[in-house]
């Protein structure tokens, strides 16, 4: 520690790269979270379905993905699938992997929300003459999304952080850029503290925005 010369210049020179990396993280996370949420919503309904086959398939999907590290899924898709003739680019592979990963976790969140929904809702809808599907679309889903937003927010932030795993297949996102700066300049403290600060602030901003949304769509008490 004695002879360590601080040189923040290396960070300022690479600011563009770091911000580009951050942007990549946000972009990939956003796309995956969006697609993953749609998948998660559908899978959640499958998880509570009365039809055994649908329910069991959904359970298999969720249990499998939740127990396999994201990195392995990424490596499998990017390096492994070519064996079967399916070749994807880096970012495609990663977004694909993160989407599948997100879908499983988000499905669980939605499932929890569905299970916690008052049973009387379905009955009230039926009594009014609504079909089950209409009840799902117009009553349950809006209510569901509002009630699980806190848990969903938590998941979204986690998934954003998981975007850093893209570095493993050399996608030039923030963590990858930081590591590059570290290896090139040996200014580890500057590099990693910068990354830490950027990530913490970004997560904070995302959390703040999500809380704003939460408040706006929350069910009035």
């Amino acid at each position: 520690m004695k002879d360590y010369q601080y040189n923040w210049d290396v960070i300022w020179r690479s600011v563009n790269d770091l911000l580009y990396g951050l942007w990549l993280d946000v972009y990939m996370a956003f796309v995956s979270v969006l697609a993953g949420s749609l998948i998660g919503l559908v899978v959640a309904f499958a998880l509570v379905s009365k039809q055994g086959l649908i329910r069991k398939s959904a359970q298999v999907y969720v249990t499998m993905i939740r127990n396999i590290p994201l990195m392995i899924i990424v490596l499998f898709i990017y390096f492994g699938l070519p064996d079967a003739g399916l070749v994807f680019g880096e970012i495609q592979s990663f977004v694909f992997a993160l989407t599948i990963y997100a879908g499983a976790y988000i499905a669980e969140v939605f499932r929890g929300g569905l299970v916690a929904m008052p049973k009387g809702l379905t009955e009230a809808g039926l009594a009014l003459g609504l079909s089950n599907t209409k009840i799902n679309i117009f009553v349950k889903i809006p209510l569901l999304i509002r009630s699980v937003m806190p848990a969903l927010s938590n998941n979204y932030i986690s998934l954003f952080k998981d975007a850093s795993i893209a570095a493993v297949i050399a996608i030039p996102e923030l963590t990858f850029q930081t590591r590059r700066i570290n290896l090139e300049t040996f200014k580890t403290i500057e590099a990693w503290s910068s990354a830490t600060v950027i990530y913490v602030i970004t997560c904070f901003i995302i959390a703040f925005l999500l809380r704003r949304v939460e408040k706006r769509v929350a069910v009035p008490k």
Partner: protein
Amino acid sequence: MMNLNTGFWHELWISIDDLAIGTGIALSVSALAIIMGTILGLLIGLALTYGNIVLRTLARIYVDVIRGIPVLVLILTFFYVLTIWGINLKPFQAGVLSLGVFSAAHVAEMTRGGLQNLNKGQTEAAKALGLSFRQTFLSVLMPQALRQILPTWINTVIETVKGSTLVSIIGVVEITLVTQQIIARNFLTMKFYAVCALIYFCIGFSIERAGKYVEKKIAIK
């Protein structure tokens, strides 16, 4: 021309010892990290719940910073930065340390949540009976909080095991790295990443099941 099918099984057989060792390493890293993380996390959680303003702020900063960065960043930071400070950590130790610090942040947060969620009446009843704070905490609060926290803690254990994949990046020869070494030799990429995924799945699934079993056994009737 090699019949790929028998080739795979043959390859699997000759790699079994490496995979087993890799699994052992992964489990060791995870176990040590969990032990460290749980003890540290409980202490920080207590500081968060009962500490004075200084302790609470420090604990809060710790938890928010650690939870605001991806695990990968934490692992790489520990590995690279500590070298600058003259502490030359072997990859295994760096892995344990970083995963320990990571899980501690989660354990701290869930401890705080579990303790604060307890019914206020419990503390009042204990006070009314003349129990001291220490007695109240040990005999009334902690037993209930631990039962509350258990599912979430099991989750953290599984996340730590999944996080141990990332220490392959700093050179720990655990499952992922072993798999990559095998693949470098026999090019059966897809199949062996599938094997790798399967191993993680089995570990996670068993932990989940064990957790549910323990939950049932200690549940409050």
